[in-house]
């Protein structure tokens, strides 16, 4: 039997202190929708659980003066959904986060947990990467910032150093004519883990795509930022040829595996299909933004 301790500190410093002191034996608890499942399955047996939901900075949503957003790492999907402005500005990021699990899971699951869990299939991650979001991380050696795409290191692993806690996501201010979208392929309509996920964020000026980022999930050991796909879109009027080139770039970026959720061939094909569909939605939204 494991001797597990549970702590729910109310400050970040306390949390970092306890987390670092316990070295590898501790685990952060945000919504628990990954970690509790893993504990029950015997995959992890932490000696200490640090519940971060009592720390204000990790549970707040702030719209910054410049029009950006700072979202606490432990904010649940349901809480984010209820924010009056966030979904207007970042519909793709919001829909990605809201696709995680059921209504029940939404009541708890956080984007921070989704990212730190390190699954290449995490739904919020491609959307966050497409959004150009950065994260703030705090550890025993202080704070640092990094782009979301720099966090995952491989299935179940991140580039956070021992004792570091993900504090928040920062989403940049929005230009006029910019919007985003996220789509995933799952066999059912709900309750499945993405077989492929695709986030697209783009800016349109007079019908021309002036900026774009594409995030692709579940097709490689980590979620990918597909720069070649973005390049194909930028400068184009999102005509069929440009989109097809971007779709081809997505297919080319895939390094998937065959598993119970999908085959290599299937995932690769679907990556291209989703890119096209996601671009269409993002462009439509951008046209109205």
């Amino acid at each position, binding site marked *: 039997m494991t001797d597990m301790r549970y702590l729910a500190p109310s400050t970040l410093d306390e949390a970092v202190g306890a987390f670092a002191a316990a070295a590898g034996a501790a685990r952060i608890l945000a919504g*628990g929708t990954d970690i509790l499942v893993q504990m029950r399955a015997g995959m992890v047996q932490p000696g200490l*659980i640090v*519940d971060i939901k009592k720390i204000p900075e990790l549970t707040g949503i702030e719209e910054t003066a410049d029009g950006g957003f700072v979202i606490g790492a432990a904010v649940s999907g349901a809480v984010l959904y209820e924010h009056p402005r966030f979904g207007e500005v970042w519909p793709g990021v919001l829909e990605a986060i809201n696709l995680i699990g059921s209504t029940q899971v939404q009541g708890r699951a956080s984007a921070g947990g989704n990212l730190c869990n390190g699954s290449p299939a995490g739904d919020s991650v491609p959307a966050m990467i497409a959004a150009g979001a950065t994260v703030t991380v705090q550890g025993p050696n202080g704070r640092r910032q990094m782009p979301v795409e720099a966090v995952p290191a491989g299935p179940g692993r991140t580039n956070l150093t021992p004792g570091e806690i993900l504090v928040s996501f920062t989403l940049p201010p929005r230009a006029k004519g910019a919007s985003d979208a996220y789509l995933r392929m799952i066999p059912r309509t709900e309750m499945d883990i993405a077989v492929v996920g695709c986030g697209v964020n783009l800016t349109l000026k007079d019908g021309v795509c002036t900026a774009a980022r594409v995030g692709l999930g579940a097709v490689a050991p980590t979620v990918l930022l597909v720069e070649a796909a973005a390049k194909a879109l930028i400068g184009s009027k999102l005509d069929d040829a440009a989109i097809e080139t971007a779709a081809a770039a997505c297919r080319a970026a895939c390094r998937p595996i065959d598993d119970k959720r999908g085959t290599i061939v299937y995932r690769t094909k679907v990556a291209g299909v989703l890119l096209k569909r996601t671009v269409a939605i993002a462009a439509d939204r951008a046209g109205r933004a």
Partner: protein
Amino acid sequence: MAKLHISTKINGEPTEFLCDPNDSMLDVLRGPLALTGSKEGCGSGDCGACSVMLDGRLVCSCLMLAAEAEGHEIETIEGMAEGEKLHPLQQKFLEMAALQCGICTPGVLVASKALLEKNQNPTETEVRYWLAGNLCRCTGYDKIVRAVLDTAAEMREATR
């Protein structure tokens, strides 16, 4: 393993319990608190049979540590009826045969109530997506969805 002492409110009543740090809320509800109305169909968040309200938000009690209940409020199926009077959803489920074996029913009812508290006039699609995390193997969902829609209509009528 030292037990934790937790003070919480369950179905409106201040409640205290002791738990192990790795007990789930569902373990404590079903065990020491003898509130066996919440069911365990999977223990992994997939079936919704353990659905409860945590501070007014729908969650799976199997995906929550009991220790997290400290200072929070929980509502379970046992708190749904007011005394002898069934909640309109409970009544409608009976009238419309929206349960067969009934093992999913507590979770489905708690989740449906949460929906109607947020949205008095849900569409069929909204009901279906809201309840996607509540597996029912018996009914094929048809009668559940109809019962929720009918209850919503009746409750709107009653408050007009």
